[in-house]
């Protein structure tokens, strides 16, 4: 394959990855990693380096729209970033002493289990919002956004401590494997904090850039960020993320949950298969 073909192919795939990544709040790595390793035969180190760049690109590219349109909850995001960055540092510190196949099996398994409550909530459009009290009240974990039909949806966050714990696990996973953190962030906000699906995926999208940036230094220093691979990935992802952000704003929560459930299943299977030695 010529350099030009390689760039063009990765660019187009990355647009697709950016659209999905920005809607479900996982970043584009779920698509980018298997394309690079399986289709293009690129070493997993460079694939993860490209995934880190893809996550930061999806996050910033879509967040500029989500934040301006006030779907992302800035306070929830900043509060949970305390846990995700701490987790990312701990994960990176112990990564050298862990077995990545075992980790992928465990976390992939957990993600498969979380499919059950995610699928059971399919059909829920606007969650019944709990009363604002305790830590959530103290931290102002409340907000509102305009739904596609023009109505103002007000919501309050529940169980901030559980959300923080789940996000901590997400951060550890990002630090350990460079992938998979976004899913745990969305699940923490969706299942524990009971935020509307759009708020969960866009606030995860807002946070994943910071978690990925935290570990970017390590990947850069190792030489995992290969310019030939990351250039078309970054450009495609940025275009895809801005398209995805527009699609999300026009979609209902129930639709986004369905797409999230599918991407969650794919991400979980990817991790489990990779752990079992199928080259993903």
């Amino acid at each position, binding site marked *: 394959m010529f*350099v030009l073909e*390689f760039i063009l192919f990765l660019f187009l795939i990355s647009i697709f990855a950016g659209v999905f990544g920005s809607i479900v709040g996982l970043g584009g790595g779920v698509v980018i990693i298997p394309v690079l390793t399986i289709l293009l035969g690129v070493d997993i180190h460079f694939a993860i380096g490209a995934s880190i760049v893809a996550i930061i690109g999806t996050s910033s590219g879509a967040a500029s729209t989500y934040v301006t349109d006030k779907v992302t909850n800035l306070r929830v995001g900043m509060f949970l970033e305390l846990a995700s960055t701490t987790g990312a540092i701990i994960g990176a510190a112990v990564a050298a002493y862990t077995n990545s196949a075992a980790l992928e099996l465990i976390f992939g398994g957990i993600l498969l289990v979380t499919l059950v409550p995610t699928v059971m909530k399919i059909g829920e459009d606007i969650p019944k919002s709990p009363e604002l009290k305790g830590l959530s009240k*103290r931290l102002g974990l409340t907000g509102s956004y305009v739904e596609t039909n023009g109505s103002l949806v007000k919501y309050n966050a529940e169980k901030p401590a559980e959300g923080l714990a789940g996000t901590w696990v997400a951060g550890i996973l990002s630090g*350990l494997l460079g992938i998979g953190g976004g899913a745990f962030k969305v699940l923490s906000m969706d299942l524990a904090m009971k935020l509307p699906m759009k708020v969960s995926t866009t606030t995860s999208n807002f946070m994943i850039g910071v978690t990925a940036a935290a570990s970017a230094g*390590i990947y850069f*220093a190792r030489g995992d960020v*290969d310019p030939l691979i*990351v*250039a078309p990935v*970054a450009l495609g992802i940025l275009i895809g993320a801005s398209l995805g952000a527009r699609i999300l704003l026009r979609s209902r929560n129930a639709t986004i949950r369905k797409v999230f459930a599918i991407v969650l299943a794919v991400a979980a299977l990817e991790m489990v298969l990779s752990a079992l030695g199928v080259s993903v």
Partner: protein
Amino acid sequence: MNLKDPESMNAIIGKVLRYGVILSAVVVIVGTIGLAVSQGTSEASSLLNYNASSIPHDGIDVSLSGLLSGLASFSPFSWIELGIVVLIATPVSRVLISVFLFAAEKDRIYVLITAVVLALLLFSMLVTPSIPGFHA
């Protein structure tokens, strides 16, 4: 723009992210065009043939001086790298500016939260890569 107005906080953070992304994309495009013109018809695999087991991988220069001299000599790879550095710096700038925005709102809890996140982020990006045990 009134800094005390929570509405403008969203607008400012949105703008920081948008400008960071546009600047990064422009620099990456410059490098990519350079790459396509100079080596577009080479075999991609010949450029991807690094030794993955050595760190940093043979053939990849990760030093600051290497980046600067590459930029000066218009090496496409160095321009792409610069664009990626801008991309990585974008969420960091967003956290930094949030500290000041929360300070303008006189929201002490969130000034503290974002300042701690910024400190953790800078520690992780700048300090941990030089600690040997952190090489995964």
